[in-house]
């Protein structure tokens, strides 16, 4: 990533934020925080997958569980594709497994929101350090 790219400060932060949303940890990866990125990616992906495995793909339901879906979609925009599948109603969700699935996937999404904000803040600090502003 060249210096000219970082000159457009706002665009740079938006790209970092968008990458962090697209793939958990990618925002940190682009900032050369490789270990941090790998830890975030593994932890969040695993939590999300465990949630979907326990509760079934139906836990991602943009129609009947909108508040949960709002948190789940913070994992990645790719969750919207799963949401379309889950909204068909063909996948059963019930009982304690459904609750655990919703909680796991939603907490993973909220943690990714924390990571997105952190990646943007770190990118801002990098630019400030480099420009000396």
């Amino acid at each position, binding site marked *: 990533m060249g210096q000219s790219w970082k000159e457009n400060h706002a665009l740079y932060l938006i790209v970092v934020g968008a990458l962090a949303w697209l793939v958990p940890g990618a925002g940190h990866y682009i900032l050369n925080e490789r270990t*941090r990125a790998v*830890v975030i990616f593994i932890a969040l992906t695993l939590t999300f997958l465990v949630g979907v495995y326990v509760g079934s793909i139906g836990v991602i339901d943009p129609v009947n569980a909108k508040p949960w879906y709002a948190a789940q979609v913070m994992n990645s925009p790719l969750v919207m594709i799963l949401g379309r599948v889950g909204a068909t109603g063909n996948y059963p969700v019930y009982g304690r497994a459904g609750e655990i699935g919703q909680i796991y996937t939603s907490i993973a999404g909220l943690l990714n929101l924390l990571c997105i904000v952190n990646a943007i803040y770190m990118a801002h600090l990098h630019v400030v350090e480099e420009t000396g502003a």
Partner: protein
Amino acid sequence: MTILTMFILGSFTIPMRVATTPASMLWLLPLVVTISVVYKATKVGRMRLWSFAKESAVLFGSILVFIVVAALILYGLAWIATGQLPSLLSGSTF
């Protein structure tokens, strides 16, 4: 598509059997691990394995202690409200 792939994808379409027993509360442990690891990953200055693992473990323990304390307080309140309070009220002179 191999049978194994189909089996793995298929296992994501049916909920697991999780009984509503006290043991099902143990499902919170992996979630607490994730929360402490990801939170610490955003907070530590430099990612060094030992210090990162130590800080994550401390946070994990703190969250767990807080949950246990909250559970004990709620259990105590429920015990008073359902076990002690009715007998006190029925035995009163009013």
